[in-house]
């Protein structure tokens, strides 16, 4: 069966779906990890692609301020966890990576950010400690980089 194209980004007020992503070490990261803390998911199209490189480097600069607000930020893509780690290490950033590699794009579809050509849309999702989406944003095109200011606009909604 061909993959379904996402129907649209999860809107504020939507409970986070059940999901399983993989951390860099291959361990599972599930919906349960969202409970009790604020989470920022940064969906990005591809490890090593030019705009994603700028995006994570920029967010790294203000990582401390995101953490000061009690939030944890993660990069999410359909790349394998090994590729994500190599990407993160090459950039010299510490933002944790989560892989939606197998079944490919399943979590991206559940969040409504799967691009019909097989990669995540460039999107930000802020989830409250109750695992409910508080704010979400999808860039008008995958080549447009959401400003770090938008993360703080999103955190203000928690």
């Amino acid at each position, binding site marked *: 069966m061909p993959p379904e194209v996402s129907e649209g980004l999860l809107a504020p007020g939507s409970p986070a779906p059940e999901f399983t992503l993989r951390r860099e070490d291959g361990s599972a990261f599930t919906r349960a990890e969202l409970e009790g803390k604020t989470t920022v998911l940064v969906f990005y199209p591809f490890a090593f692609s030019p705009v994603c490189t700028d995006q994570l480097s920029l967010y790294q600069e*203000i990582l401390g301020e995101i953490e000061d607000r009690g939030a944890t930020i993660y990069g999410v893509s359909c790349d394998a966890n090994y590729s994500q780690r190599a990407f993160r290490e090459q950039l010299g950033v510490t933002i944790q990576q989560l892989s939606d590699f197998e079944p490919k794009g399943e979590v991206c579809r559940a969040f409504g950010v799967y691009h019909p050509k097989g990669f995540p849309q460039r999107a930000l999702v802020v989830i409250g400690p109750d695992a409910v989406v508080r704010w979400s944003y999808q860039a008008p095109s995958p080549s447009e980089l959401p400003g770090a200011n938008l993360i703080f606009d999103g955190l203000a909604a928690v």
Partner: protein
Amino acid sequence: MTDLRSAPIPPVGDSDHVRGPADGIEVIEYGDFECPFCAALSARLAARAALRHTFRHFPVRSSHPRAWAAACAAEAAALQGRFWEMHDSLFEDQARLEDPHLWRRARELGLDVERFDSDRRSEAVAARVREDFRGGVRAGVVTTPTVFVDGRMHAGRIDEGVL
């Protein structure tokens, strides 16, 4: 703590570095001394007499490991009245940004090198660079160079038409 929520670009003020005629077209640049596109833009801006150019720092360390040090060097030079001279010196040769290169630049500009070296490591200078960066983040700057011309934002390689 003021956070980094979206906000309009800060207006040009007394603490800004500005050159060009007061009645020139206002160009506010967010740049990084290790960014090659910023160096190219700098040469283009300098060649135009009718621009009022404001330079603000937007160093991103993981892409450009010496960008922050270079920004602080320019601010330390500014404390001795030589911001633009250091700005031009850094952009003219981006391959030499290590500490001894910064000291040599300071010497060549006739700065008090000891004072320059202590200033560039000071919290006041770091705070000045950070203030520019944060203002840029809040205005939606995501990459360098980004210029605001008549309040409109243009990012990346800047078209000739914009200037």
